[in-house]
């Protein structure tokens, strides 16, 4: 699986009546198997960056060299009335260009992915009857089915209770462990602390660093404007 | 009758046609259109054209009795109809209807024409009486409602003649109408029929409806039984009724089904007869329900030998000779 290469990438939205914004140019290289956490205050542009990396938004400048990407919106953004199994199997849509339906192999792959994340027992339930945590695990199972070399997750741990958050984090580790690039934005700094690298998007620029340096108290203060010797959102220890 | 005004009439015909279409498209341009129309050609006759017809049936009655006093058409007849009427017909403006059928008249513009008399011809419903009273106060013209029943056409003609001061002409017409109706009532029994309305022929008048009154009164039997009104039926229903004759005013329908076995073959294997009644200038049995129906009555009373009567009647009613307006046809 190939890596991600950004050359002078400027992500952002074009001004429409003065509401546009631009992120600072990014020159980065991410190797397969890396987990990168993107942190920053609300409105810094994390979602815009992820969407640009996923190919859903055009970059304002620069270039991206990337393999096939899969994008996951924040929990609660996916609403579907059909079964969990069907939703997961839809991850193979990119393989079914001309056929009129999903193949049995797709359903088998879906079932395997669900079992792997211990949500196999939910396979026949309607998706919108699950809890946020269960839905998120199903969607990550779908990421496995999609088998994209680059996975972009927008705040994957938001709204989740600690048990489900841990399960999701473990699943993200497995995703990366199989050689994929995982880039996830988060407010949950302990998760960032356990990532391979941290990209901090702030008012004065974007910096990619090792977690230890990126999450140092003075950097956190400069980024969020609050004192924090623990995680600002849950108070847990930072490292 | 309008001598040197012919050129003016022809020129204004073009203007009126585009004015009418344009006003239809603008929709609410009633006042605009009517003010444009009233600047039309009959300026020299403005004093004489002082009778307004409230609806199409009334317009036909006034046209028959005193056509030089008709101020305008409630609804402008089609091009084919106008060609089947004397030239002045095309020069009359479209005024809109006062009875609720079709485009409504602009009352202010109508008042600007200073009509002296408004004639309505049709239902003598008490509701219409109230409407008549209201309009009388608003327009300052005398409103008269004349009973439109088929059997009372001679009386209606005489009443109109009195109102319009066209006594002699109206009397002659009324006498002829009475004679026609007399023969019509005594007509020998005719075949069973189905009256096909509309281009697909699936709309009909059931027994007792106004639309089929002329045919039923001539002792023809209407196979359609149901409400005493107009309604839709299916072709299978017509086949089940198995009429001897299909009667229609619609040339398009007649041409479309002349070779269609579904319509033409009867249950006993014979070919069903197809009667196409003339539609110009106005229908012989229907459309609108007015004095035009006399032609249907005359012909049904005596299909073979009524040519003379029909000619005279047509000349009196419309001002055109019969040969110019068509004959009933049995379609093979």
């Amino acid at each position: 699986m190939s890596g991600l290469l950004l050359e002078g990438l400027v992500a952002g939205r074009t001004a429409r009546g003065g509401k546009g914004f631009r992120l600072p140019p990014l020159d980065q290289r991410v190797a397969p198997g890396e987990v990168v956490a993107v942190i920053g205050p609300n409105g810094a542009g994390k979602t815009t960056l992820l969407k640009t990396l996923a190919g859903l938004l055009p970059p304002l400048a620069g270039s991206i060299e990337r393999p096939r990407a899969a994008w996951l919106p924040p929990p609660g953004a996916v609403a579907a009335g059909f079964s969990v199994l069907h939703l997961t199997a839809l991850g193979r849509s990119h393989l079914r260009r001309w056929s009129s339906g999903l193949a049995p192999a797709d359903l088998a792959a879906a079932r395997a992915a669900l079992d792997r994340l211990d949500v196999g027992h939910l396979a026949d339930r309607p998706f919108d009857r699950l809890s946020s945590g269960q839905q998120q695990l199903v969607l990550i199972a779908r990421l496995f089915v999609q088998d994209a070399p680059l996975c972009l997750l927008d705040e994957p741990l938001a709204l989740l209770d600690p048990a489900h958050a841990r399960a999701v984090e473990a699943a993200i580790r497995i995703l990366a462990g199989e050689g994929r690039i995982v880039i996830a934005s988060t407010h949950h700094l302990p998760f960032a602390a356990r990532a391979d690298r941290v990209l901090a998007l702030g008012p004065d620029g974007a910096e990619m660093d090792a977690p230890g340096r990126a999450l140092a108290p003075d950097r956190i203060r400069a980024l969020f404007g609050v004192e924090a010797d623990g995680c600002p959102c849950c108070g847990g220890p930072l490292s | 009758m309008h001598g040197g005004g012919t050129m003016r009439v022809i020129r204004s015909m073009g203007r009126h046609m585009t004015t009418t279409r344009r006003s239809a498209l603008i929709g609410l341009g009633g006042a605009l259109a009517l003010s444009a129309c009233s600047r039309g050609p009959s300026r020299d006759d403005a004093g004489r054209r002082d009778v307004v017809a409230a609806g199409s049936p009334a317009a036909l009655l006034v046209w028959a009795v005193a056509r030089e006093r008709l101020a305008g058409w409630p609804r402008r007849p089609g091009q084919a109809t106008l060609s089947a009427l004397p030239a002045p017909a095309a020069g009359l403006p479209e005024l809109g209807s006062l009875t609720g059928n079709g485009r409504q008249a602009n009352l202010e513009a109508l008042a600007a024409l200073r009509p002296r008399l408004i004639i309505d011809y049709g239902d003598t419903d008490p509701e219409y009486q109230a409407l008549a009273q209201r309009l009388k106060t608003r327009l300052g013209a005398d409103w008269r409602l004349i009973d439109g029943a088929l059997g009372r056409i001679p009386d209606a003609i005489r009443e109109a003649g009195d109102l319009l001061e066209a006594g002699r002409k109206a009397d002659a017409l009324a006498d002829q109408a009475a004679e026609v109706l007399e023969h019509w009532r005594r007509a020998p029994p005719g075949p069973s029929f189905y009256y096909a309305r509309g281009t697909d022929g699936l709309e009909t008048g059931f027994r007792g409806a106004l639309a089929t009154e002329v045919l039923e009164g001539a002792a023809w039997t209407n196979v359609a039984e149901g409400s005493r009104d107009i309604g839709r039926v299916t072709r299978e229903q017509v086949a089940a009724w198995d009429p001897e004759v299909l009667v229609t005013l619609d040339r398009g329908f007649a041409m479309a089904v002349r070779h269609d076995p579904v319509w033409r073959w009867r249950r006993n294997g014979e070919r069903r007869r197809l009667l196409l009644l003339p539609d110009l200038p106005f229908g012989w049995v229907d459309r609108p329900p007015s004095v035009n129906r006399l032609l249907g009555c005359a012909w049904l009373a005596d299909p073979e030998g009524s040519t003379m009567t029909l000619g005279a009647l047509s000349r009196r009613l419309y001002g055109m000779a019969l040969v110019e307006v068509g004959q009933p046809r049995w379609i093979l």
Partner: protein
Amino acid sequence: MDPVSRLKSTLPTLAATLLVVACVIAVLATGPLAIPPADLLSAAFGRGGPEAELVLTLRGPRLLAALTCGAALGGAGAGFQILFRNPLAAPDLLGVSSGAGLGAALALLLGAGTVLVQSAAFAGGLAIGGLALGCAALTRSGDGRLALILCGVVAGALASAGLGLVVIVAEPYSQLPAITYWLLGSFTRATLAEALFALGPICLGGAVLLWLGFRLDVLSLGDEQARSLGLPARRLRLTALAAAALMTSAAVALAGVVGWIGLLAPHAARLIVGERAGRLIPVSMAIGALFALVIDRLATAFGPAEIPVGLLSAAVGAPAFLFLFVTASRRS
């Protein structure tokens, strides 16, 4: 999947199809013309008497029209409800029905025959639907659902305004009833040629929707998800909308404006087979066809006059929809 569960998953579709077949036979065998079923059967194989042949000629196209219109409206309604993620989406969302009505009314105003009326209606529906799609495409906003709905409402309103204009200008004794009855809907006026003519676009649109299947599920997740899952979201959505508009246009051109089928059938189907497009669309088509057969039967069940199916579909469909809605919400 083992044979048992495969059978279980296709059971609803199978049951619906069998039900449709049973209703077809029932409708074919009953009507005003009493024919022994044996005669009908031999006529179906070309060896029947002339009367049985006539009956088949009369009932066959009507049946075909009802089935295809019902299936088309059911399928289009299901497609729209999935695409818009809105249980109140109906086939008229893009204004197609209003456009088709306008086309037909214009053709009737100009005195065209039934074939031209059908073609004009089809063209009108596609034109207004295309207008809505085109305007929505101009806005380029996200997945454009709101833009589509708004543009559909606007386009439909324009068509309705045009229709109102035509109604005002139409001749009240012949054209206006024809237009009114056309708009109210009927399965019986179609000839075999017209029914077959409508079959083409309906089958095409239906095939496209059935092929789209799971892709509609992906589209219903939103454009960003759809693109992330590797599908050309905009193109597919346009294809689905065009297919649904094609089916609706052809159905309205054939039978007039028959509402509520497109709203009701998907809801009923959803209660039976759930939300997956791959199963919802075919079952919705079957239920739509069934519903159309039922109201077609009812249209001629109360006397010789035909009750317009548009009225019946509202009279039966609205309470049925309420019932389904209550059932569905009780269940969840």
